[in-house]
């Protein structure tokens, strides 16, 4: 039974894991890059060790350094979080070889699901439906892919076999544009995963992205915690997730739940994992991939089931049987998560960096904020732009949406631009409220709010004018004072005070 957990990650998920460990009485070891000395996970952990310079390849991806720190700190378990080393079979294997409990699945399960092509084949053999696409396993050249593409039919998706999080993914509408898109997909995949291999999959249009959370222990028990609807995406990046899916009914939930358990069993799965599916208008579902790790969006499931997924991961990794049987899992109310990214929704969602000078978190009943940042912290260009997750729970989906609206309206982050206005517009949109959306909704049928509410425009005009006036007045005062008193040091003193 391990006692000290190294958290091989950063940001909100490192904080989330440290909190779970602390609540279970386990010691925690944080690792950090030079850019993250003051990051929240470093501040909250019992121990903290420097990995290296800011870029991930020189810090959070340095497995060798992490093993050094494991030795130095005496950690006997490791939680990889998501991203970075979370889905590296060799890394998980190295943990096992060193007698370190890896809080995640077996290396063989990671391998089986990590290569997306192999995964498709494995679950297909277990009777799980998959999206039509390339069926051979192994690296394929551009020429091979270009030859197969017409057989699958357009539109299709180029996807990284080592993929995840939408990276290295491209939509292809015709054979002509395919060579260029293959190149950029491989480039992004290479940069994100160190593996430029890609495969093809039919693009299922009008589909929803629905995923099933599973939990499995070392004693053969596998349960599912229902679904999350993650169809609100932009450039294949999830932006909003909710549980339950407004599209779901009990019969489909049961069918998909059984499928997910079967898929997990097909790779002898242990710990928490997620089966991602596309669900078309006719409620046919297709396996997309399995994420063999904790997901960003796990809190929505926690809020409707009451299960603390991270604590359960840790218990399972300690060899304990699952605390719950399938029949213990009940769904209560509705939860929604908005990913708050440091990016400018009014400027093509361009990432925004800088120091957070001030923030005000929404709080109160039914609100949870998972964040790794705080006022004074600097958002650097080295990592993911997601700086926090705002999760709300309501007795009904309508109440959750209303609560999310008020929480978004309250949330202040000063110093970087955020996509909060995007979420506000989304929560106001009738299609979202009606649950009428698919994975193309944001890109094809949604625009950030720029309608001109005449009353608000007048207020905006007042705000701008008062600000401009204040600026003019200050400048005038400065000149006046300067005229009154020109002794050098007083002048400088005032100038300094004004520019603080």
């Amino acid at each position, binding site marked *: 039974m391990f006692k000290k957990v190294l958290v091989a990650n950063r940001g909100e998920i490192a904080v989330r894991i440290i909190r779970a460990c602390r609540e279970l009485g386990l010691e925690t070891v944080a690792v950090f890059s030079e850019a993250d000395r003051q990051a929240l996970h470093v501040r909250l952990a019992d121990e903290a060790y420097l990995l290296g310079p800011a870029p991930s390849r020189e810090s959070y991806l340095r497995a060798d350094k992490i093993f050094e720190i494991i030795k130095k700190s005496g950690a006997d378990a490791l939680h990889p979080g998501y991203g970075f080393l979370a889905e590296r079979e060799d890394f998980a294997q190295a943990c096992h070889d060193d007698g370190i409990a890896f809080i995640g699945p077996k290396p063989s399960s990671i391998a089986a699901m990590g290569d997306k092509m192999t995964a498709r084949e494995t679950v297909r053999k277990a009777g799980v439906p998959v999206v039509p696409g390339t069926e051979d396993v192994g690296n394929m050249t551009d020429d091979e892919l270009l030859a197969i593409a017409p057989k699958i039919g357009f539109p299709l998706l180029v996807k990284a076999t080592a993929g995840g999080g939408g990276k290295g993914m491209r939509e292809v509408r015709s054979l002509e544009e395919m060579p260029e898109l293959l190149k950029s997909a491989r480039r992004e995949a290479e940069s994100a995963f160190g593996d430029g291999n890609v495969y093809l999959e039919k693009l299922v249009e009008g589909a929803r992205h629905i995923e099933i959370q599973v939990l499995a222990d070392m004693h053969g028990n596998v349960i599912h915690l229902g679904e999350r609807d993650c169809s609100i995406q932009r450039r294949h990046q999830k932006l909003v997730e909710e549980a339950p899916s407004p599209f779901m009914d009990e019969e489909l939930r049961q069918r998909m739940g059984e499928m997910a358990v079967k898929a997990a069993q097909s790779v002898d799965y242990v710990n928490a994992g997620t089966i991602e599916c596309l669900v078309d208008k006719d409620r046919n579902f297709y396996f997309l991939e399995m994420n063999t790790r904790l997901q960003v969006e796990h809190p929505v499931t926690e809020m409707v089931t009451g299960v603390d997924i991270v604590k359960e991961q840790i218990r399972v990794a300690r060899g304990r049987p699952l605390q719950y049987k399938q029949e213990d899992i009940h769904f209560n109310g509705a939860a929604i998560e908005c990913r708050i990214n440091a990016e400018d929704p009014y400027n093509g969602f361009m990432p925004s960096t800088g120091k957070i000078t001030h923030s005000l978190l929404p709080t109160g009943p039914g609100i949870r904020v998972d964040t790794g940042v705080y006022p004074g912290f600097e958002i650097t260009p080295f990592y993911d732009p997601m700086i926090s997750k705002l999760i709300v729970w309501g007795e009904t989906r309508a109440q959750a949406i209303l609560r999310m609206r008020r929480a978004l309206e309250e949330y202040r982050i000063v110093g970087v631009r955020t996509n909060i206005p995007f979420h*506000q517009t989304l929560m106001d949109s009738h299609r979202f409220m009606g649950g009428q959306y698919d994975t193309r909704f944001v890109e094809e049928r949604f625009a950030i709010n720029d309608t001109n509410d005449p009353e608000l*425009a007048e207020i905006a005009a007042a705000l701008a004018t008062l600000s401009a006036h*204040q600026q003019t007045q200050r400048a005038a005062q400065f000149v006046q004072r300067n005229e009154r008193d020109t002794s050098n040091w007083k002048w400088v003193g005032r100038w300094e005070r004004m520019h603080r």
Partner: protein
Amino acid sequence: MRYVTKIDDQEFLVEILDEKHIRINDKILDVDFESVSGQPVYSLIIGGKSYEAYVSPDEDKWEILLRGRLYQAQVEDEREKRLRAAGSTGASESGEFHLRAPMPGLVVVIPVEEGQEVKKGQVLLILESMKMQNELKAPRDGVITRIKVRPGETVEQKQTLLSVG
């Protein structure tokens, strides 16, 4: 002090009467306008209604983020406006455009060349930052006059990358 403030195509005549009163067009309203915690976040109580907004200057404009909407306002005092109206008659705004890096990052690809004609919305450069490949696009039609960086180069925020004439 009288100002003319323009949002989109709408003009508001705003007069600062004293510290606690303004006139907007024909209405006189109580105002109470304060920065919160010394931040560019302002609390405005106007005619009893309470608003809070991010307000920041952006070159010659003011940006106001209010209730999830972004407004861009141009504020001129009346005298300035009269002077401008009397003087230059709507100078052309088609000068050279300089594409600057919106954030620090790594130049990945520059799919255009000097002298090339480009269309509005065409990708001019791909910049990697925060694990994302960000496409920087042409804000209008034009010709690439100068490219100042190369693929593989690391750039600072606001560094000029290339120019469109």
